């Protein structure tokens, strides 16, 4: 057998391999069941004993070389295949994805969450109440007598079933006091916060809406003082507006608190110097507060000589507008997705 010629033939055939199919054909021709190597091994037994070792040596070397060539060719083909794929596959990853974008919660909700986070460490529970409310909880129980301006028909929405749409979240305070007064130790200490929609029956414009959002907290316990209330409000406002903000309190009047205070913060624009935005005052009122009026406590069986309490409320819609730089209150409720998407 002319192994040199076989070797040369092998080299030639491998040099001509261009594809996996070529390799498969060569592989089959040489190493297949009917392949040359098998045939040559079968012929081994017919070889003279003297020539057998040399023949077998050549044959094994040929088979070894063949296997090596196949392996090399396989790697080469694989590598070339990957190169071809890499060359062919070019993706523009800058093209738009099948992504609908993130949504978001409303700025008012963000403010409510922020206030909740400030209050939780003090133990405040968030409670809710009806928006279609009884006159008693909205007014009478809160020391707002029948002749008070807040009860005028033009300010309050009255429903056909002789209820009303709550004009403030303070109605929740009345309900909480009523409920807690039935509990052992009158449910003290009471620490609740309420957030929600409130309604005023007035003509709407850029800064007045028939529906808006308020927040209110009430804390009833033995020994609470005006000083405690003011400190808590200052803490809340500085957490909300920034620790460097100045806070002051001016006297106010609310029928359900006595004393009543209006917390104010320094105007962001003029830093309390006075400018057009704050009407020259240098300060902006951010809510209402006070010690719970003794008549409100007495209404629910609490003895003002033994327990005291305070309340603080603010308009969360206005606060949301301020925090998000939304210029008009109306825009908070316009639900313009161009605005909401811009806040994500």
């Amino acid at each position, binding site marked *: 057998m002319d192994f040199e010629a076989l070797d040369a033939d092998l080299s030639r055939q491998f040099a001509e391999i261009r594809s996996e199919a070529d390799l498969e054909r060569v592989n089959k021709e040489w190493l297949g069941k009917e392949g040359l190597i098998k045939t040559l091994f079968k012929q081994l037994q017919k070889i003279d004993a003297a020539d057998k070792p040399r023949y077998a040596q050549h044959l094994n070397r040929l088979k070894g070389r063949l296997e090596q060539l196949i392996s090399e060719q396989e790697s080469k083909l694989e590598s070339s295949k990957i190169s071809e794929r890499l060359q062919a596959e070019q993706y523009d990853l800058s093209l738009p994805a099948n992504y*609908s974008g993130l*949504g978001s919660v409303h700025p008012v909700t963000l403010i409510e969450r922020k206030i909740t986070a400030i209050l939780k460490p003090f133990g405040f529970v968030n409670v809710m109440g009806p928006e*279609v409310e009884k006159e008693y909880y909205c007014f009478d129980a809160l020391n707002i007598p029948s002749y008070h301006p807040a009860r005028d028909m033009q300010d309050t*929405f*009255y429903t056909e079933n002789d209820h009303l749409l709550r004009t403030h979240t303070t109605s929740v305070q009345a309900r909480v006091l009523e409920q807690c007064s039935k509990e052992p130790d009158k449910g003290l200490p009471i620490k609740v916060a309420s957030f929600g929609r409130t309604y005023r029956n007035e003509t709407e414009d850029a800064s007045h809406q*028939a529906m808006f959002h308020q927040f209110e907290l009430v804390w009833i316990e033995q020994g609470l003082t*005006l000083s405690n209330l003011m400190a808590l409000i200052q803490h809340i406002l500085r957490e909300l507006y920034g620790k460097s903000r100045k806070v002051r309190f001016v006297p106010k009047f609310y029928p359900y608190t006595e004393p009543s205070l209006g917390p104010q913060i320094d105007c962001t624009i003029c830093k309390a110097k006075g400018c057009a935005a704050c009407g020259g005052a240098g300060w902006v009122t951010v809510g209402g507060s006070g010690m719970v009026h*003794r008549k409100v406590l007495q209404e629910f069986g609490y003895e003002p000589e033994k327990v005291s309490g305070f309340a603080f409320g603010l308009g969360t819609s206005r606060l949301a507008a301020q925090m998000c730089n939304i210029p008009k209150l109306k825009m908070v409720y316009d639900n313009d*997705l161009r605005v909401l998407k811009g806040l994500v």
Partner: protein
Amino acid sequence: MKLSLNLLRKFIDLPSPEVSAIRQMLDDLGLEVKDLEEGPAGTVFNIETLANRGDHLYATGVAREISARLLTAVRHPALASNLPERPVSLAIRRNTDLCLTYAALELHNLNALQQRSDLSQYLESAGNHPLVDLLNYIALEIGQPMHAFDREKIEGDVIVETSTRPEKVLALDQKEYEVPAGSILIKDSKKILAVAGVIGCESSKVTSNTTKALIESATFDPVTVRKTAKAMKISTDASYAFERGVDLQGALAGIKRLINLIAADGVQVSGFSLQQTKQADAPVFRIGLGKIREQMNLLKLEALEISARLKHLGFSVDFEESGKTFQVQVPSWRVWDIDSADDLIEEIARSFSFSKIKLDLPPLTYDLPEPNYIERLLQHVEPSLVGKGFFEVITKGFYSQSDVNAIAVLSKGSSDNHLALKNAVDSNYSHLKISNLVHFARLAELNHRKGIQSVKIFELCRLFSKSKNKNGPYEYEADVLTFAASGRWNEHEWQKPEDRSEMISAFKAVVESVVAAVGHRLNVTPSQNPLLHPGCQATVLAGDQEVGFFGLMHPQLANELEIKQDLFYCELDAEKLSRLVHQNVFTEPSDFPSVKRDITVKLPPAEYAQSVSRFIESSNYPNLRSVAVFDDFKKADEDFRRVTYRMTFQSDQRTLESQEVDTIIQTILGDLQSKKSLGLV
């Protein structure tokens, strides 16, 4: 109230020439200066007064507040020391105690009265009859509203009484008003002269021809005046003052001040009459020094200083050293708003300044409270919605009558369930909403018009109804989680717009993820909500609990509301969904191989595919792990759909034999035929 700085300076020495410093002090005293202006008499403060402080409506009242802050004296205006001994030339019949005091002064030779521009320069609107300007000036100075009648236009006696029926009057502003029954009227024998505390009548007003006048200086019941003025839809300086309560002794002071001011003019003071209800003593309150110190957290606050400030405010103060208690009597101008010792704390704190109070933050408790049901629900579902590109919106709770009508076209009888508002100023707010669908559709349409192609919104809000809600926490309302999608699913225009079935699939996926977020699998059954497309809506079940519905807005309602694009809407009972929130617990996965088998059944076109899978799942076949719709196909010439279900079997203990799975499959097929009457393919 508009108050001239120069007028204020007449009554008190101010510490600083700086207007800004005075403004700050007024703000701090509860006399909030809204703005400043320059008038003929110099700088004028526009002060927003507190609703309960009638004593803040005049210059000496403001001066008194400042005096308590600075502990300096107020220079009170001079009052005449003597009153005429002769009564007025007509009888005054005070027939109602709602008029607490009625003082009348008769003036003759009124022509001699000089115009006092040195005084009227402080008035907001001067240039009336010299007598009227003078009375307005006295009101600005000491807070007593007074009125002048032309004496010669009064016929018979002056009668002060409460009206028993509505009356019509022509007031001196030339307008006609209807005065409600129960108002206090000043009358003569033939006509109404004035609506007490509100406005005088044209028929008796003083003019340039008037030579004799009758001056009224009275105290009227604040509540009655307010009710009358509100009913008449009028607010005058007088009514504003009376509503907030004037000084109980101011009627006499007003008369004396007037006599003092006209003394040099040659006007003849010809008669005076006074009628009044005997007043109870002003109330007295006791308050401990300790309580004041504790409330203000100023433990070294001196009793002497507290007494001094209260006295400057006009209170009579007696400090009992032994009990460290103040006994404080309220002045006659504060009986309307001081009704407990708590009010005294405000008086003291205000005169000191709230800024002097030492702040004391209450301690934190580390016992964090449980979230309420809305908070709990949102903690679970909000990430699903926001993550899928939904924006929270806030819609109003109102409907207009036309919204109610549009809904009633499809939902017969729904008009009766809308809670109506009796007195809405805006006619668009005549009812409360029973669904959020209309609001969402309008909101989506509006945003589409602004160029937003993909509207995906959610809201947790209240829906209202006229009938009482028996299950939820509120009588006439319920919390619902609502969400909707309209237009394209994705905002960009890179891919072709989704067709309706793709939108249905995408929207249902959101419903599914919301239900999954509370720990349940979504199941749906056919529903019949009249506001949704009858062929594209379903009841939402969280597991086996019904929690709401979803579907496509009814095309007819869309037409009624002029909504152009499809709107997919879901409404879920928030309270119920929140109650269903649960955290799934760990179950160990099986390591044994699963076996899958497909079956195909003939399903009527209108039947939900899930009805079959739910039937199979609920039948507890052994080792059946799941059933899922695998294919839904309908040949054009067949009146049924071919729905293929893929069932997965798996055991926790062993490898299942093919034969035993086949046996179960045969049982299932048999049950579908016999119990569900379904044909097999």
